């Protein structure tokens, strides 16, 4: 069964540093997403991406965040200057027509 692949599985970074989280969506999917789950809390939507542009974003997705599809297979989330409160599990997801969502296994980001 096709999978959404996320790397790395765990990343530790110092406060103020930039991080890039990487995702390889399912190859024939058209819509790509990032979600965040702070420890012990619910999964929250960050952003969706379609046709090389952001289609929807939440209030969490402020100017420190950006997304990019640098080539035909990768989808990245960049956090420009990390804060302690950015520590969370970040999930990438993709979907195709028919509205099926597939999530990756997540990247646990720890900001110290």
């Amino acid at each position, binding site marked *: 069964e096709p999978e959404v692949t996320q790397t790395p599985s765990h990343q530790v970074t110092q406060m103020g540093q930039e991080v890039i989280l990487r995702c390889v969506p399912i190859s024939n999917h*058209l*819509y790509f997403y990032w979600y965040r789950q702070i420890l012990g809390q*619910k*999964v929250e*939507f960050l952003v*969706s991406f379609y046709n090389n542009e952001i289609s929807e974003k939440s209030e969490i997705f402020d100017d420190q965040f950006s997304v990019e599809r640098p080539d035909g297979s990768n989808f990245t989330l960049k956090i420009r200057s990390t804060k302690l409160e950015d520590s969370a599990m970040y999930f990438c997801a993709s979907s195709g027509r028919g509205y099926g*969502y597939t999530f990756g296994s997540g990247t646990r980001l720890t900001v110290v």
Partner: protein
Amino acid sequence: AQSVTQPDIHITVSEGASLELRCNYSYGATPYLFWYVQSPGQGLQLLLKYFSGDTLVQGIKGFEAEFKRSQSSFNLRKPSVHWSDAAEYFCAVGEDSVQAGTALIFGKGTTLSVSS
């Protein structure tokens, strides 16, 4: 605004007993409804989804869920729980939209513990 409520934060069930996890949603149009399971340190695995049609939906691992529009509910059930079912369960709702790409709204989750 859309919202999802999972009233039970933590449920403990004996192995072999039946299970029902509650989910209520608030949404004006026809919702797309999902149940996901998350084992510790793992990602989100789709158990089942409801888009339209038969209101009783079968999923993986022996789970089923019933959509009840009159009660705005989408409760998850399993007739006999196994120890491996211990995990966090999330209900989610999405827009009834022709175009995908819209956000899923998640509930806060229910932690299931299974006792022997």
